[in-house]
């Protein structure tokens, strides 16, 4: 009876093959793991391993082990920006056949696109994410659609002596790149050409840079803008010193828990643009399968279970992770946890993915280094510098700061 699993070289004490899941910290992921272990009915047992909190730390851990050909990794929780790098290096397996069909089925187009490299699917989308404009309707009755409009609102509030800061992620890290990437795509351009081979930038980049610089020097800018990350942005708004923030939807649950009083006037609107609606940053996570896994069959199956509609609903309701499967948004439980779910779906239509290249890490690192601090940006000079450093980064020839 046990012959099958023994041949598959055993595993845990129970004799069931162990599937090692490596994922970013997520409070209730244990519930998904338990559910899938139950459903597996003895075919495999998922063991959860938690990666560091920050994306760079997570990537460093995974990549170091993959580079060493470690067979102890099976299912990998991947940030949407890592697909190209890991696929190109041959560290994650492509999804084909029945696995691919199940991963694609009912999945929203934008998140799915983040898991594709060179026409092949390399991961199964788990959760997506888009940034929205979050504002206080007692201070800003009608949310502007552009960055200029937001700056005008701040100036007006400042003149009235009311909270007027607009919080964005201006620290020297991925968040700054996310901001720039959305602005440049809102201006009709991109950091790289669509094939990810060459630098694009140009006039749209200068427009985006001019907007960032203007914002950083306007009344909207918090003095600590150059050190703000997502969580600082959230806390600044909860502390009452900001009139609006640009952030991921997790801020809603946090506001509900920490400042229920403020929740009544806490609203959301589409991501601001240059001279029309903007293209919101696209985030999220996918499940990939390590190239070195010794249990590919069980790993694919476990990954599919961890990202199926039921799992995504649990993650959405309990941990605030927006689903990648369209039908989950219509579940009744979603209404309470996700009053902004239509806004997310709308934003997903035009959301701006980050450039796809195996050297994304290098591109992102030099970009955030050049753009920091935002008030020191000089559009023409900064664009030229970005062009030079990103070209080098694309070939992984330059130095990482």
């Amino acid at each position, binding site marked *: 009876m046990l012959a099958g699993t023994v041949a598959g070289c055993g595993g845990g004490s129970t004799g069931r093959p162990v599937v090692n899941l490596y994922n970013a910290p997520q409070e209730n992921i244990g519930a998904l793991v338990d559910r899938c272990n139950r459903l597996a009915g003895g075919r495999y047992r998922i063991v959860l391993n938690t990666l560091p909190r920050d994306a*760079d730390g997570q*990537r*460093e851990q995974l*990549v*170091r082990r993959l*580079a060493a050909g470690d067979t102890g990794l099976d299912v990998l929780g991947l940030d949407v920006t890592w697909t190209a*790098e890991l696929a*190109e*290096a*041959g560290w994650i397996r492509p999804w084909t056949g029945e696995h691919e069909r199940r991963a694609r089925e009912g999945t929203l187009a934008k998140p799915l696109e983040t898991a594709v490299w060179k026409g092949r699917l390399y991961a199964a989308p788990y959760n997506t994410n888009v940034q929205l404009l979050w504002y206080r309707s007692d201070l800003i009755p009608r949310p502007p659609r552009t960055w200029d409009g937001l700056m005008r609102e701040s100036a007006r509030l400042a003149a009235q002596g009311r909270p007027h800061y607009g919080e964005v992620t201006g*620290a*020297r*890290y991925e968040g700054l790149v996310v901001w720039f990437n959305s602005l440049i795509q809102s201006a009709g351009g991109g950091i790289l050409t669509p094939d990810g081979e060459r630098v694009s930038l140009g006039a749209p980049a200068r427009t985006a840079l001019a907007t960032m610089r203007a914002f950083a020097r306007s009344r909207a800018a918090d*003095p*600590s803008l*150059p*050190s703000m990350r997502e969580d600082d942005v959230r806390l600044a708004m909860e502390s009452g010193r900001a009139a609006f923030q640009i952030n991921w939807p997790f801020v809603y649950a946090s506001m509900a828990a920490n400042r229920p009083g403020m929740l009544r006037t806490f609203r959301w609107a589409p991501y601001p643009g240059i001279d029309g609606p903007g293209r919101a940053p696209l985030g999220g996570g996918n499940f990939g399968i390590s190239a070195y896994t010794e249990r590919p069959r069980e790993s694919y199956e476990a990954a599919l279970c961890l990202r199926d509609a039921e799992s995504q609903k649990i993650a959405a309701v309990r941990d605030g992770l927006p689903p990648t499967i369209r039908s989950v948004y219509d579940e009744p439980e979603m209404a309470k946890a996700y009053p902004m779910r239509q806004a997310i779906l709308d934003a997903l239509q035009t959301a701006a993915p980050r450039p796809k290249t*195996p*050297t994304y*890490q*290098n591109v992102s690192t030099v970009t955030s*280094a050049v753009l*920091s601090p935002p008030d020191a940006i000089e559009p023409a000079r900064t664009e030229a510098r970005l062009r030079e450093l990103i070209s*080098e980064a694309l070939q*992984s*020839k*330059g*130095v*990482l*700061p």
Partner: protein
Amino acid sequence: MITRAPARHARRRISEEKAAQRRLALWLCAPAALVMLLVTGWPILYAVLLSLQRYDLRFPGERAWVGLDNYAAVLTDPFWWNAFWVTVVITVVSVAIELVLGMLLALAMYRTLVGRGAIRTLVLIPYGIVTVVAAYGWRYAWTPETGWLAEALPAGSAPLTEKVPGLAIIILAEVWKTTPFMALLLMAGLALVPDDLLKAAAMDGASAWQRFWHVTLPLMRPAILVALLFRTLDAFRIFDNIYVLTGGAADTGSVSLIAYRNLIGGLNLGIGSTMSVLVFLTVAAISFLFIRAFGISAPGTQGERR
């Protein structure tokens, strides 16, 4: 004739004993020498080989010999030079502070009349504590809202995210942790200053400061130089404190940190190894300068001369 034979015999016995001694010495030293050679000599040569290649683990297919291209890339890069000068500043400032503070600490430990043993014990705590652990302490102390030291700063300042305050805190952490080591080395140097000499100077009417400056310091010179050399080279490879305190944000990264980022974060073995080799060469140059300029000799060889 008769007297020569035993002499030859004795000489042969001595040389036999010498040869046995040599054999024993070689056997005794071989394992240590071999380990050190294998784990530093071979890898550093290997690092030189890697530094001459384009070798990015993410593009295994593009591995190729590129001559000195990596050196050109690193040596013309502003990020590298920023890290280099940051390292130099940290080294010079922290070693200078440590020398003054360490001397005061050494004098206090050496001359105190109250609780000498207790003082000497407590001072060892910063020396022994894990650097990363101490760094976390400093990090939380300077984090707004969490830290008792951050409370003293004007509202809204986040010193660890700005260059100059960040470097100042890195230097503070480094100085706190390593001054005791400096002080212990200097204290041993103080022990070499004969009391009679100081008493004689006092009789001649020299003030405490004059005695320190004209009698104690010159006699301590070798101890000071050795301590300076040790600490300078140690400070130059600073990594742990920066990794925990700022992570290299706001241009506060050292050469060790930027090399680590390129190596382990970027998986670029070519560029990373180039930096490794450059750090090694810098350290070698510093040691050479110290030895040349001040005539320091290796601690272990001192015994031979006495």
